[in-house]
């Protein structure tokens, strides 16, 4: 059972367009992270959202954590070819003193020039 559902799975858009990627779960997370992964490399952390309703901005990227801490979204404004990559959301699970991430399957974004 996939704890985190990401949508869409694939997205191909033209440079300059806006897009939103969604990450949904029936579980509550301590926090949620967004990563970007390029071919042949490991994921790189973009942002961590902790508080329900929190909004964080990273240049043209806006991240939002749902009020109930079960879902999140990533909005990119005026996408550029350099934004191309696999975007992964990951929910943080704290069990006792252990810390684990559970990942969604990712959204593969292609921005065409």
């Amino acid at each position, binding site marked *: 059972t996939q704890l985190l559902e990401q949508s869409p799975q694939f997205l191909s858009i033209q440079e300059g367009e806006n897009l939103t990627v969604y990450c949904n779960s029936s579980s509550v997370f301590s*926090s949620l992270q967004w990563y970007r992964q390029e071919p042949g*490399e*490991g994921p790189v952390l973009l942002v961590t959202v902790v508080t329900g309703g929190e909004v964080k901005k990273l240049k043209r990227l806006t991240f939002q954590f749902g009020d109930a801490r079960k879902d999140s979204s990533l909005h990119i404004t005026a996408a550029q070819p350099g934004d191309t990559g696999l975007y992964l959301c990951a929910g*943080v699970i704290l069990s006792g003193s*252990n*810390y*684990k991430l559970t*990942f969604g399957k*990712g959204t593969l974004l292609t921005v065409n020039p």
Partner: protein
Amino acid sequence: GAGVSQSPSNKVTEKGKDVELRCDPISGHTALYWYRQSLGQGLEFLIYFQGNSAPDKSGLPSDRFSAERTGGSVSTLTIQRTQQEDSAVYLCASSSRRRSRNLSSTDTQYFGPGTRLTVL
């Protein structure tokens, strides 16, 4: 400074053979994680080492998978009697996280480039 490194970058093996994958974490990082990334499956947690504590092996898919971390630094993931379904990219990550019961604490995991394993 140097990031997380993994070796080999690519490994092709025959079904039934054993393989060892190596991870060198960032110096000083106490936590080390192994994940598996398969097409269409996302990242799957395998095992987690934290300092000198017993590892969390809850994600290992079968007893053919094992991992160790020597001296609190380098880690080796071993897959015995490989099967075709073991083909995937194996990613290692490390963090400076220390054991804490602080439920609001966050952590940054730094990932290596992965080892692409192909079982023929």
